[in-house]
């Protein structure tokens, strides 16, 4: 089995480091390093939503923001959010709404902010994984966690968790996938590339097993900070 540029096997994730509760003023927060990605996520709320006509009388709305720091990428990024940022924010917020018991907080907003401080491919899944932990750290009632990961193809291989160098391969395909745990349903799925139907299905399946690895790390981090609660998701 061929190894990758950074020595990983096909189904290895990059090293992930999780720290909870880092931002003192937030209800919940998470600092996460994922390879060379660095992310901070915070949760504020639920709190009453203004303007009222944007609120939902049946449930809380998750206002998710995916933001890249200007210095997180090669060429300085403008602080003004672009189309890509807004699209990722939208679908990531949906993914979180699928596990938060939003029906307990009608007419409110839950603000989830994620900030990419350093980027090396896979930032949206790193942010969503961190955001899911920040929600748990905030003590929000949740049906489960969201465990997100990228699956892709580079140089002919279907692999877990591509780096930027691997994403630059001529045949690269990148699939971002988020799984609700322990329910194992798909909460986010975005892909760009050119891949036949069967390989694509394989990648989706790989997403489930890769997400299990992410979930294990998420659980550990939560258990370390909240040992008395036992495993909150099983």
């Amino acid at each position, binding site marked *: 089995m061929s190894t990758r540029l950074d020595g990983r096997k096909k189904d290895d994730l990059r090293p992930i480091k999780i720290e909870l509760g880092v931002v003192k003023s937030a209800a919940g927060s998470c600092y996460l390093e994922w390879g060379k990605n660095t992310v901070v996520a915070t949760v504020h709320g639920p709190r009453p939503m203004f303007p009222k006509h944007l609120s939902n009388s049946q449930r809380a709305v998750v206002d998710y923001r995916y933001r890249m720091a200007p210095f997180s990428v090669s060429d300085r990024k403008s602080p003004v959010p672009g*189309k890509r940022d*807004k699209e990722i924010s939208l679908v990531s917020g949906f*993914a979180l709404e699928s596990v938060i018991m939003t029906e307990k907080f009608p007419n409110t907003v839950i603000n989830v902010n994620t900030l990419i401080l350093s980027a090396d491919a896979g930032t949206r899944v790193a942010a969503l994984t961190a955001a899911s932990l920040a929600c748990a750290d905030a003590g929000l009632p949740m049906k489960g966690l969201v465990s997100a990961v990228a699956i892709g193809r580079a140089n002919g291989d279907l692999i877990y968790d591509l780096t930027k160098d691997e994403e630059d391969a001529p045949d690269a395909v990148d699939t971002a996938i988020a799984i609700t745990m322990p329910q194992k*349903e798909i909460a986010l799925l975005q*892909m*760009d590339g050119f891949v*036949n*139907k069967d390989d694509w299905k394989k990648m989706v*399946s790989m997403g489930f097993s890769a997400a299990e690895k992410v979930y294990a790390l998420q659980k550990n981090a939560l258990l370390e900070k909240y040992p008395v609660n036992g495993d909150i998701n099983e």
Partner: protein
Amino acid sequence: MSDILNLINAGSIKEKIKNGKREDNRGFEDFRDLEIKTSVLSSADGSAWVKLGKTEIVAGIKFAVGTPYPDSPDEGSMSLNLELTGISSPDFSTGPPQIDALEYGRVADRAIRSAEAIDFKKLSIVAGEKVFIIFVDCIAINADGNLIDATEIAALAALKNAKIPKLDEKNNIISKEYSDKKLELLNIPLSFTFEKIEGKIIVDPTESEEYASDARFSLGLVKDTVVSCQKSKNGVFTEEEIFTMVDISVNKYNEILKKIEALE
């Protein structure tokens, strides 16, 4: 239809879907009638008017001359934009940023890009200095659901219809004069959008059906090759559901493709 009526309507939609029926009696895997007209506008370099049921999208192409990106000096580029204006709904003319239009346009745009439908190298005019930029502007005339697929079809039909403008000696576009070359499309990516209502998967949703659903999945295909996908809304899908939707899409691809290939 107003938001409130849609909400009231959602209950009856769900009831029908449970019983295997759609509000317009289509099968779960049936598209609405699709009508495509091209060359509908004399001012555009290419144009298409697409009707998918009551949903109507107009797409117009404009070529412009610009400078290439530093990291691809010999390639032109494309910019696809979907606008939801007051024409189709008064809610679009004011109010919050159009996050829906942005998402739909992004999904349609990414499929064309990933499918490598356009050979951007052929849009180079002077390597490193001047390239063609293709603007694909799509406007919703009537919005009755499934704007993503309708936008994808309108964009491709308009691109297929596009003529490349003539240039003067300074490489500026000569208005209303065209070279003999038409824009060549290497692949025809199509989009297939599904909604999940009461655990059932339906294709080509109407606006009412979209309100009744809380999980959407869109797939971009070239024949049996996946080129893009997007899961949206706060519902979830099982692995099996995802696989089913891919299979349905691959089966449907040729049906829609034929309508585009039939165009002049």
